[in-house]
């Protein structure tokens, strides 16, 4: 197993290297440069030239790439133009916030989605199944940012149960209670679509398993129906559910961009959007490479988990 993990980690290196080239080239190719963005109305060729020199952007592209790569390998991601702050500090701060949001959302959608899928499959075509299927269809169809805005209007503006935006109160204690009150609306908005997808796929995975012989055997043995479903069938179905969870984790993480914008959550998605608009090259590059590395590690973890569950998959 250790060899397998190591092999996967090594094969991830070219991927990250490729990503660093792609993001660098894209940032170098898109029209508009940081100097123009900073100067705005005052971007005369002369001023732009001078500022580019001050920012170190006057060097040839290749040279800039290798300087950046070399620094990054030593743990120096550079300094953000637009925030005047170390890129790594900013990315780590922001990534922490995204993990809290996406992690909570992921746990919510996994539990709710699997539970709904299992109940649905156990009561196929029953009232509960129909109700869940309808709710799931509704959930999948609502864009998360729209749902987020509606949640703000109802629960924050009208009822005033929750704060509108941000992660921490401006005044008062920064405790778990404060975090939960800020987290509830964005985490729910973010979880809804993924819950629907997981519920649908869990349902079909369970239905497939429930038709198999060992389930019939278990029932014939006299195992209680609840135990058949939650213990025997679900465990077998998890093999096909876990990859879905992996995909949905990626989906939740990328969906966090919209939610972070709507709820002004100080996460990495919002950071990247702002950085792109301001042409903050180093922040975009550093942020993308960091997020990509996390994705790669996450995917490896999912694969490893799956091969632990089902030894046949191991290659």
């Amino acid at each position, binding site marked *: 197993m250790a060899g397998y993990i190591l092999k996967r980690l090594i094969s991830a290196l070219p991927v990250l290297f490729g990503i660093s080239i792609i993001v660098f080239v894209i940032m170098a190719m898109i029209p508009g440069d940081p100097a123009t963005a900073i100067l*705005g*109305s005052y971007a005369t060729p002369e001023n732009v030239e001078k500022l580019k020199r*001050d920012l170190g952007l006057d060097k040839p592209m290749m040279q800039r790439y290798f300087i950046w790569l070399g620094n990054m390998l030593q743990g120096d991601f550079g300094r953000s133009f637009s925030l005047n702050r170390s890129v790594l500090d900013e990315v780590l701060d922001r990534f922490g916030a995204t993990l809290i949001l996406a992690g909570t959302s992921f746990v919510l959608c996994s539990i709710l989605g699997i539970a709904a899928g299992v109940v649905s499959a156990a009561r196929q075509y029953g009232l509960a199944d129909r109700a869940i299927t309808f709710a799931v269809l509704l959930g999948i169809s609502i864009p998360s940012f729209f749902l987020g805005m509606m949640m*703000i*209007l109802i629960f924050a503006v009208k009822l005033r149960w929750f704060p*509108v935006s941000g992660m*921490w109160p401006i005044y008062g204690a920064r405790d778990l209670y404060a975090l939960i009150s800020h987290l509830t609306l964005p985490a729910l908005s973010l979880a809804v679509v993924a819950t629907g997808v997981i519920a649908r796929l869990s349902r079909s995975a369970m239905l497939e398993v429930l038709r198999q012989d060992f389930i019939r055997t278990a029932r014939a043995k006299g195992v209680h129906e609840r135990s058949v479903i*939650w213990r025997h069938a679900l465990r077998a179905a998890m093999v096909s559910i876990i990859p879905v969870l992996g995909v949905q984790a990626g989906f939740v993480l990328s969906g966090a961009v919209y939610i972070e914008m709507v709820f*002004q959550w100080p996460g990495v998605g*919002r950071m990247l959007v702002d950085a792109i608009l301001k042409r903050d090259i180093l922040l975009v590059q550093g942020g993308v490479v960091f997020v990509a590395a996390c994705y790669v590690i996450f995917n490896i973890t999912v694969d490893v988990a799956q091969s632990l569950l089902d030894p046949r998959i191991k290659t």
Partner: protein
Amino acid sequence: MKLLKLSRRAMLAAGAAMALALSPLGVQAQTPEDVLIVGQIAEPKALDPAAVTAVNDFRILMNVYDGLVRYKDGTLEVEPSLATSWDISEDGTVYTFTLRDGVSFHDGSAFNAEAVKFNFDRMLDENHPYHNTGPFPLSFFFSAIENVEVVDAMTVRFTLNAPYAPFLSNLAYPTGLIVSPTAVQQHGAEFGRNPSGTGAFKFAEWRSNEAVVIEANAKYWDGAPELQAVVFRPITDANTRTAEMLAGGIDLMVEVPPVALSEFQGDTYTIHEQAGPHVWFLILNAKEGPFADKRVRQAANYAINKEAIVNDVLEGTAAVAAGPTPPAFAWAYNESLEPYPYDPDKARALLAEAGVEGAELTFYVTEGGSGMLDPVAMGTAIQADLQAVGLTVNIETYEWNTFLGEVNPGLEGKADMAEMAWMTNDPDTLPFLALRTAAWPDQGGFNSGYYSNPKVDELLEAARAATDQAERARLYKEMQVIVQEDAPWVFVANWKQNAVTSDRVNNFSLQPSFFLLLGDVVKN
């Protein structure tokens, strides 16, 4: 069975946790007394006035720092601030300032002529030991400065390389705010996060992406502020900012989207409006194509229904512009100027006279950008108006930075017209950079439509060299009449900056400079 029980219990617990999370956590607390919470549009870059360029950052800086001069309340005319008086040499190149006695920076160090010299040398002298605390993108505001001399502890002398009339208003601009040399020496490149000035408020705390907190400076030379503290919260999404205002999470909101203004009618909120030194216009390509003919440029000015744009598209958040100079520059604005009336028949007649009926035009539109208001909707309205008088208009839309990259190098060979907006601090800036012959793009200016009129060039050069405000005003007023007649642009709108305050906030008013001054504000 055991597993089942456990999982049911776990489910119950999870359900209970969810219910708890969803149940009212108590109505959200009101914001504290004497602490003003401001909804800003973005996270500031730095609190170093020499290093930043965004109005968003200026809103904080103007409360933490003072300049040698400042704008008189409600106007764009300069008055003494850290300098109590000044003297301008006959030829307009030597400015001698007498400084205010007994002022100290928030870090305790004294304000004096040495401090002033330090500030400008840091920005302008590449060999200054603290020049590396930049870059200083707007340092060209002071590129006319040849040197800064300390005459005595409380007198400082600026020598310019040529007469430059906007010098005083540039000193009132945030780039001219005076920072504490001691703090710069102490914090170096981190000064932007550890600012120290002489202003009404002193810096307290910066929580990244959450809030910048400033506290009252009890020893402020111009009277301590009423508020104990101000908190600036970055809320980039306009809808979310509106929701925060409605939910009571902020007390003051700037840049209210036009469509959201109706939410704030009634006694609970006050809507503030103030026309600023902003003009929104269309650059017309006077070098080639139909707009090379003055009659066609005038026809465009007649054909576009500016009233409809400001009232319907912008929901009254702007006024119709008459010429190149915004009325907010009251002293330099020509009151006798009337906007081109909406007159499609006259436009058609002019087009027929010029023989360009049915001409096809390329129109550059941006998706958004600093001061651009609602550029896509406005561009579409303009397209429809020009279509109505028989011109075919093809819109090409660009993201803001890309747009600037297309428009600033000039429209030649690419487009006939482009949207543009400017916000400036002196009536000199925009026409000098965008209407002179010597400001064509190939010479490093912003005259992207290649307008050229020797008389206008002459007037603008003379106004820049004049030191007497009345004389400058006369020259600008004459320039406005000629430019309006020549119509190098379609003059569309002057933006009114807006803000909303809750009923707990008193004594607040917006400034024509678009700066946010909170020294007199009271919150109950």
